[in-house]
């Protein structure tokens, strides 16, 4: 049984590590907005060590507005959105009064993890191009996502891509059902992690891996709280 405080702390540590990875890429890699990400890295170390977490989270939330302003939105779309959602939910959980308000803020994050998978699957499954495998063929044939030109050859394997499309859609739309049972939830999270790693390998979307993993403790806690009655 995962307690509220343990889940909160686990999420803080995972988020701090994800932000440190992101900041290192900006400071030493792309060398873009280095001073902004230097301060995010410093605050992430504070969060990792757990000193004055509520104040650190508040400062990081305010600082996130500077980064949003610098790039006129999230730098890396969905992955950055999840990172910031985790940050804001953690901040609210630390600052709201004990009891239901605190739990609601953290539970909202777990709820959004479920919604993120379900909505992604739902919008695909109602699209004919996704159902017949054409969408994934398009992704490999002309989108900017494949990390290497050699991967474009996969566009010429329609049966494989049809099967992959259905595997992704079914996993995503059925994900909410896994919430009802502890064993299926753990397996769904393992599959989810593998899914994000595959996306990182094929499309270079590495930040999704770290931010979604950082949100998983909130979902496990929500399951314990609502289904197991913890």
């Amino acid at each position: 049984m995962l307690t509220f405080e343990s889940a909160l702390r686990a999420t803080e540590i995972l988020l701090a590590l994800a932000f440190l990875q992101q900041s290192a890429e900006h400071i030493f890699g792309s060398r873009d907005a280095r001073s902004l990400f230097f301060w995010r890295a410093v605050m992430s170390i504070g969060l990792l060590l757990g000193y004055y977490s509520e104040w650190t989270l508040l400062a990081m939330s305010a600082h996130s507005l500077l980064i949003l302003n610098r790039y006129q939105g999230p730098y890396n779309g969905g992955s950055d959105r999840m990172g910031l959602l985790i940050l804001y939910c953690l901040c609210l959980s630390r600052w709201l009064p004990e009891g239901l308000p605190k739990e609601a803020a953290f539970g909202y994050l777990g709820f959004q993890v479920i919604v993120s998978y379900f909505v992604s699957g739902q919008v695909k499954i109602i699209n004919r191009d996704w159902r017949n495998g054409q969408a994934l063929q398009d992704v490999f044939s002309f989108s900017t996502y494949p990390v290497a030109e050699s991967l474009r050859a996969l566009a010429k394997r329609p049966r494989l891509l049809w099967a992959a499309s259905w595997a992704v859609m079914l996993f995503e739309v059925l994900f909410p059902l896994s919430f009802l049972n502890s064993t299926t939830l753990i397996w769904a999270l393992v599959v989810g992690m593998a899914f994000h790693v595959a996306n990182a390998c094929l499309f270079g979307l590495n930040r999704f891996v770290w931010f979604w993993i950082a949100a998983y403790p909130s979902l496990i806690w929500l399951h314990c709280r609502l289904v197991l009655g913890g």
Partner: protein
Amino acid sequence: MWKTLSFALPVLFPSWQFFKTVEPSPRVQWALLSDGEGDVVEWNEFRLHPLKVTALQMVLRLFWNPYRNDTLFVVSCAERIQQFPDPHSIHEIRRRILSDLRKLPFDTTDKLLQFRLVFVHRGEVGLEHEVVFLSDITPTVVPVTC
């Protein structure tokens, strides 16, 4: 201030509609010109994808992927320009092209730069390429003012 807060609102209420449809995909191309009058002779692809990435490289990129993430940001900027050619996105793309030009083995400081956005999509008979944006012609070096 309100504009900045408007960036944070979609974070709190996200839509999560990843890959709903596969939209036309942007390519950034740049060209160097000797003067602002002549036509562009050759367009160069900005940050070509490598031909092959090994399994080990894929694993390492889980932890260290700044170049790719920066290129994904350029894709976002190109998509924003397609919607509305905002100066911020144009500046972000131009800045990165200029930065990459400095790594070329020849001097480009006396040249002029122009870039364009070509969107690729599936047409009736194959892939189609459409130029949707052509930038102003600008110097490759910002003049120093006293």
